[in-house]
């Protein structure tokens, strides 16, 4: 089963920083958000709201840097959705992984996301997170709706969308964290996101669509 492993530099410093910053922010937002929603009593409603607001606004600002980064570096191309090899990837996770087969889509500097990841991360970064930020910002500014010229908005609707998004992110985290254990070893993917370097199998040919724009390693 095991082919020759190559140690390649997959994630740049900013990318790793962004990943872990976002992880921390989402973790804080999720735990305080559920408390604000009345699921449990931990920090107390007052503190939970303040921490949630601070963290949400911090994320909003930080996200602007991510958007800037993703476009100036051309990394956005890593998120272009595709159906090619999709069936193979799904088949791998549903069947091949139990047979000890190799991943049909080894990571490459030029293409670090498999088709499934592309779809999920695109939805996350371009849809789910912005929706959370917009509804979160509206929720935060509830008392200013009149000044903002949106008096007809319903808090209930905003809350429901925000909650639906929160549950989606929660579900994503569960699956995402689990998926990090499916690498060469259990911690291969996690280590890569910390150091930037990952062991990947050598010798799998990539097609052109799988490659992101070539860029130099820092």
């Amino acid at each position: 089963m095991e082919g020759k492993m190559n140690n390649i530099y997959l994630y740049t410093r900013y990318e790793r920083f962004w990943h872990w910053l976002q992880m921390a922010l989402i973790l804080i937002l999720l735990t305080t958000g559920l408390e604000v929603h009345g699921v449990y009593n931990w920090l107390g409603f007052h503190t939970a709201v303040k921490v949630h607001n601070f963290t949400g606004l911090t994320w909003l600002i930080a996200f602007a840097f991510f958007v800037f980064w993703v476009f100036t570096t051309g990394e956005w191309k890593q998120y272009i959705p595709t159906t090619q090899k999709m069936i193979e990837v799904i088949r791998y996770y549903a069947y091949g992984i139990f047979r000890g087969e190799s991943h049909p889509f080894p990571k490459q500097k030029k293409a670090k996301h498999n088709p499934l990841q592309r779809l999920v991360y695109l939805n996350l970064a371009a849809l789910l997170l912005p929706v959370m930020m917009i509804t979160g910002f509206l929720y935060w500014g509830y008392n200013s709706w009149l000044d903002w010229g949106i008096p007809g908005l319903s808090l209930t609707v905003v809350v429901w969308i925000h909650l639906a998004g929160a549950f989606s992110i929660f579900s994503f985290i569960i699956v995402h964290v689990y998926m990090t254990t499916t690498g060469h070893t259990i911690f291969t993917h996690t280590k890569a996101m910390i150091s930037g370097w990952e062991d990947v199998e050598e010798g799998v040919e990539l097609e052109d669509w799988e490659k992101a724009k070539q860029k130099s390693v820092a």
Partner: protein
Amino acid sequence: MKSSNTPITGVLFLILPVWILLGLISVVWADQKAVDQAPGRAMAQQAAKIAEHWNTTDHAKHEVLRQTFTSGPQVTEACISCHSEAETQFHKTIHWTWKAGKNEKGVEMGKSAYSLNNFCISANNEQDKGCLSCHPGWGTKTESTNCLVCHGSKEISWDESFEDFNSFLAESEEDPELKDLANEIQSEIQLAVQSVTLPTRKNCGSCHFYGGGGDGVKHGDLDSSMTKPNKALDVHMGVDGQNFDCVRCHTTSQHNISGRMYTTPAYTHRKSLIEDDLTSKITCESCHSSTPHQSGSKANDHTDKVACQSCHIPTFARVNPTKMSWDWSTSGKTKDGKPYKTKGAYGKEDYLSIKGNMKWEKNLKPEYFWFNGSIQSLTAADPIDPSGVVALSHPLGDRDDENSRIYPFKVHRGVQPYDKVHKTLLTPLLSGPNGYWSTLDWQVALSNGAKSLDLPFSGEFDFVKTTYVYPTTHMVAPKDNVVACSECHIRDEGRMANLAGFYMPGRDGAGLIDTLGWLVILGSLVGVSLHGIGRIFTNRNNKK
């Protein structure tokens, strides 16, 4: 190449949590600072900083107040010989008339008219003389005003003093020793007449703390503990703090005292002294402004919908107990043919033959309702539906009304007589020889009571459950003891659990979204667990 990256990455990972941690600490720390620097607090302290009243009169030096007084009305004459318009003014106020004007059906309101409650029910057009102990005349007479009920600083029993003085004086020709006694009493009377003051907490409290026939019966936020409260009981009136008298906020105009909140609101505009320096000081906003908390504080976002009192009066009756229910239907029992009383919690009477069962409680959380400042009250002339609980009075207002706020109330629950034929509430005459308290005979008490108000009584009566509300606005706690956010923003048994029609974070679930959401979470967990277990087993097999 690999090793050259690691230190920088390490630094990043160190900065990241520290950065967020510092931010979070500052968020929580800024909160404490916010309380101390709240602009509304500073503004009110500025508005109330004058310590001493000054005046240009020493009443003890006025000849007219050094005469020999033989009766109450003579004292009144002396007062109005200088304050010529005072009594005329006062006789037009509700404190004297006990009439509050007509309601929308044309029925005269007020305690000497058709208004009723679920304590002693009605004052029977002032024919129930027991009620007149709180009328500001001399004794139970209603002709001449006793200015000193509100303006006297000496405690004295006027009726007794005048009676003693007059009889000792009459008998002193036979017994000269009585002359000295008479003089002694007269000097006490004169001293009391000369001790004129602005109304103090004690003056107002002599009636308002004892309404309903005893200490703390009615209001819940007004009882004898407010005569000399500490700051913990009332942050404004506390003798160890600002030491406000009632009239510091209940400002007056021609003897009309601001703040009455029944048929009409106590105020129609919420203005601060900055917006209108002649506004009454009856609202919290008058001195504190409508956004008193530090800028950016979420509490400022609440003031358009939540009254200050809702958060700043965590509980009422914090020192003395207050009466929470009164069941007239159980009255009339006797022991050995005689009326009796029993005592219950806090040493308060929980049963009296003449009154029925009652409940006293302490340190109570208010009930909260939308309130625009007006209270809708039933009168003895209004038809009722005896099949349910009858709201004798209830706050008006709703969420969509911009003048309404969520406001705290004491709700007093009663069981009281009604006319089964006319479907109206009945007004028993209680005191006096024909009153219920002497006869324990409902028929006599109810028919005399109806006569006093010119109302019909069919002779058939039963008892009905009623509620009566009191706005809770005194006993404002110090800032450290405000109601915490989580007492309302909580899923179960929050203070505002009964208020519907809007989404409240922390209190309200999201129905279908919650159910579906948790199903998705559960599904995800089960899914990855099964997948993981599958991998562990197949991995073993593959290795074999």
